[in-house]
């Protein structure tokens, strides 16, 4: 998918000015947050479970090459074919080749964010293979001229019932339905036909289990089960960082993923799929392919951003982010929105292509405290900001200002003098009021908020005065 992250500021402004989007965001706001807060209480040692999940993900990253080899060995032993893709273009090449090899006309897809990274649907269509998205949300987006998702778990979070009703009426040529269960039923009937006639199923992978060579798939709708049970070919497209050691590790992660994502104790379906259909089996694919994807991930191994590879794609960071809640997912411009997207987009598509994203955060650390694998998201955002300055990607005046600030801050006497003048000047500017509505030197900063006026003396002055007072009284 082509990134539109360069236009983040104008995207965000447009999102703020869109009353329909604002209404839908307001309606969604807090729903996942509240459900998660209740669901995590069911776990006696939630913090301990987070710590265990963090450690097990780190354990894999420390020997990622060996764990990938182990997974490959065990998956191959059960009859799967393991392929590797450096980037989105190679994912598309592999899937199209597999499709041609098996005479595939139609591919039923369960949700895969990597397929979004690769723009896979476009490539399939161009090759004469019809891709059908089967997750209800993804299906709605597909019939709306392949609109990109705005959330990794709830892809049509930005849409209201009316819009979906219009789309179904137009696409299915059926009388307009306005009840959500009726719309869901209609989608079920349309998509059931596709499940039964697809030659190939394409899914992502929530986890790859090294000890058994399995893929673990987590869904509520059951579409993940359909696309991996009915078609004769199943292709799993997933990132190289998704490998975990054992089924015990899967059990630990399954206590965290649904609770963090949708606030469920468990998702309705958790499938652990290993190898191909056996001779007497009634169902299952005859051919199973794993496409293990780099697309920027290998570069993060051993780097200061390695923590990001622990991500299990639950979406808790965006659900809790005040920026995401206000502008929605599309403004971020690429596949992943919210705090995790503000880190992954610059890292995977080029730091110069997403300059504003690391700044689209208040660093309030709500994302950090809810992350089930304890990724220090605000810290990584800050590191990206540092990298921008170091690599001269910020404007010259900003860099000069930071340099000047650093010099002053490392000369205590000068700093003291500067703040002595500063607080008095700002107090005078406030003219007796508690805040300054427009700051002449930084009008942008006060465009959306007031600058609190200082009381008139610096911290150092007040501290010295307080000490003197204490000495006097003792």
């Amino acid at each position, binding site marked *: 998918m082509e990134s539109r992250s360069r236009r983040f500021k104008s995207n965000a402004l447009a999102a703020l000015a869109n009353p329909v989007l604002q209404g839908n965001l307001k309606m969604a706001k807090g729903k996942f947050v509240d459900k998660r807060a209740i669901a995590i209480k069911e776990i006696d040692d939630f913090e301990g479970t987070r710590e265990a999940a963090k450690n097990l993900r780190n354990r894999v990253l420390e020997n990622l090459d060996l764990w990938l080899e182990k997974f490959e060995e065990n998956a191959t032993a059960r009859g799967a074919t393991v392929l590797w893709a450096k980037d989105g273009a190679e994912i598309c090449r592999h899937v199209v080749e597999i499709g041609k090899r098996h005479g595939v006309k139609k591919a039923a897809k369960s949700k895969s964010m990597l397929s979004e990274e690769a723009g896979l649907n476009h490539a399939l269509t161009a090759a004469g293979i019809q891709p059908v998205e089967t997750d209800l949300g993804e299906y709605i987006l597909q019939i709306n001229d392949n609109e990109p998702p705005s959330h990794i778990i709830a892809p049509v979070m930005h849409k209201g019932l009316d819009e979906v009703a219009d789309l179904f009426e137009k696409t299915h040529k059926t009388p307009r339905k306005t009840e959500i269960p009726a719309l869901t039923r209609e989608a079920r009937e349309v998509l059931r036909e596709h499940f039964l006639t697809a030659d190939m199923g394409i899914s992502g992978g929530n986890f790859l289990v090294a000890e058994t060579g*399995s893929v673990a798939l987590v869904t509520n709708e059951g579409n993940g089960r*359909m696309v991996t049970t009915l078609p004769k070919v199943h292709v799993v497209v997933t990132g190289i960082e998704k490998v975990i050691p054992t089924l015990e590790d899967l059990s630990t992660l*399954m206590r965290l993923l649904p609770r963090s994502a949708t606030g469920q104790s468990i998702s309705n379906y*958790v499938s652990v799929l290993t190898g191909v259909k056996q001779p*007497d089996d009634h169902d299952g694919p005859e051919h199973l392919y794993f496409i293990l994807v*780099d697309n920027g991930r290998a570069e993060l191994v051993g780097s200061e951003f390695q923590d990001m590879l622990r991500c299990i794609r639950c979406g808790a960071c965006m659900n809790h982010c005040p920026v995401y809640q206000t502008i929605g997912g599309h403004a971020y411009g690429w596949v992943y929105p919210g705090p995790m997207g503000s880190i992954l987009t610059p890292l995977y598509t080029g730091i110069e292509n997403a300059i504003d994203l690391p700044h689209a955060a208040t660093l309030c650390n709500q994302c950090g405290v809810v992350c089930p694998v304890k990724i220090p998201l605000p810290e990584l955002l800050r590191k990206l900001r540092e990298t921008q300055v170091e690599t001269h990607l910020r404007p010259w005046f900003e860099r000069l200002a930071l340099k000047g600030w650093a010099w002053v801050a490392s000369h205590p006497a000068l700093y003291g003098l500067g703040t002595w003048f500063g607080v008095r000047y700002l107090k005078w500017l406030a003219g007796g009021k508690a805040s300054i509505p427009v700051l002449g030197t930084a009008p942008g900063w006060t465009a959306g908020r007031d600058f609190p006026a200082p009381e008139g003396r610096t911290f150092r002055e007040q501290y010295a005065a307080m000490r003197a007072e204490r000495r006097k009284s003792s």
Partner: protein
Amino acid sequence: MSSREDILGRVRAKLGRDAANAATGRDTVAATLAERTQGPRPHVNPEKSALAGRFIDQSLAYSSSVDRVKTRAEAPAAVARYLADQQLPAQAVIWPQLAGLDWAGAGVKVAARGAEDADLVGITGCFCAIAETGTLMLCGSPDTPATVSLLPETHIALVSASRIVAGMEDGFALARAELGRLPRAVNFVSGPSRTGDIEQTIVLGAHGPYRVHLILLDNE
């Protein structure tokens, strides 16, 4: 260079891989697989009746309905009762594993095979059940086809009380002990399929069953 070598090569370079630490790394991998360390687990009372109680509570919370009978032989009559209550035809696709029960005696017409689109009711057993979350663990095989719990709008599952374990870890341990290697499809099922994609409103019956009815066999 193949993409495999390219990707693994870059990962190795980033990790500073050499012959010496590769040997240590392989030992770590082998030890991790042998140790099977478990994370912290929520407390689940291991008493048989407590496991059944928790399994039922959790299943109800996940929108399944639950019935209890004593023995496997009583299951067909319980199924017939449920189908009549729901005003569903007394006709179902069943796991071949369950073909030996007296379905005809209970007036239920069954077909023992994989499910097809037209089947309205699917009847399965389960490999085991998980009390912690009210979950069925289904292991696919020629006798236990995965489609029976997936395609029909109504899924009825027979659950032996002695096969209820505390957590997912125990289910996997049982599979290792009894089946040796994992079957092609292990499906953990918790209630009917659902979606919340439109306005985060939960609707039951997305692509899988609309209803899941559990028949607990207390003496089995």
